[in-house]
């Protein structure tokens, strides 16, 4: 059964705030993270995931208002 969005979102807990993160939706794990989105995505590709979920770690110093 696929992991829920809440479960996948929780994988970022403890990672550096503001970092880009590539998450495997199939395996529900963090594939790569870092400051450069392209490098993070490429690392995920290198690990065999052609369509990682790419996002950023929430930053406690930045309140989000949409």
């Amino acid at each position, binding site marked *: 059964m696929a992991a829920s*969005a*809440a479960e996948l979102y929780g994988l970022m807990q403890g990672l550096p705030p503001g970092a880009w993160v590539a998450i495997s939706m199939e395996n529900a794990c963090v594939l790569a993270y870092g400051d450069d989105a392209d490098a993070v995505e490429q690392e995920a590709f290198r690990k065999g995931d052609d*369509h990682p979920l*790419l*996002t950023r*770690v929430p930053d*406690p110093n930045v309140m*989000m208002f949409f």
Partner: protein
Amino acid sequence: MSKVVHPYAPFVFPSSPPLPQGPPTDRPMLTVRLESSIGAYYNAFALADSGADACLFSLRVARSLKLNLASLPKAMTGGIGNAANVTYYDTITADLGDGMRFETRAGFTQGLDQAGIGLLGHLGFFENYNVEFRHRDRIFTIESA
């Protein structure tokens, strides 16, 4: 017709001087698989945002979807902290899973690059689904017509 209950996505933040109890960070978040008209895909987190007029994503997403920004119509998008951001629009398909899939005009803006998530707004999302927020229970429900 289908109806799916989603838990809010929690994220624990430490306390800070302006918000000693910590910011309220449980969010009505979904995963969405975006598909461009040329068949490129991108998986993203997206917030169910009844304050957004349309579905919006970062410019980083547009690049992965291989959209040709120079050929797309654009408009300004306003928000807190910015007078306006240039936003490019194209038609995409958004797949929420559970058989919920819709085509919509969506915007792509640098203003969302910092957030790293997308917004599911009225055009495309709320106009096609009944969405019920039960914030105290930390769940939300999406129901297709």
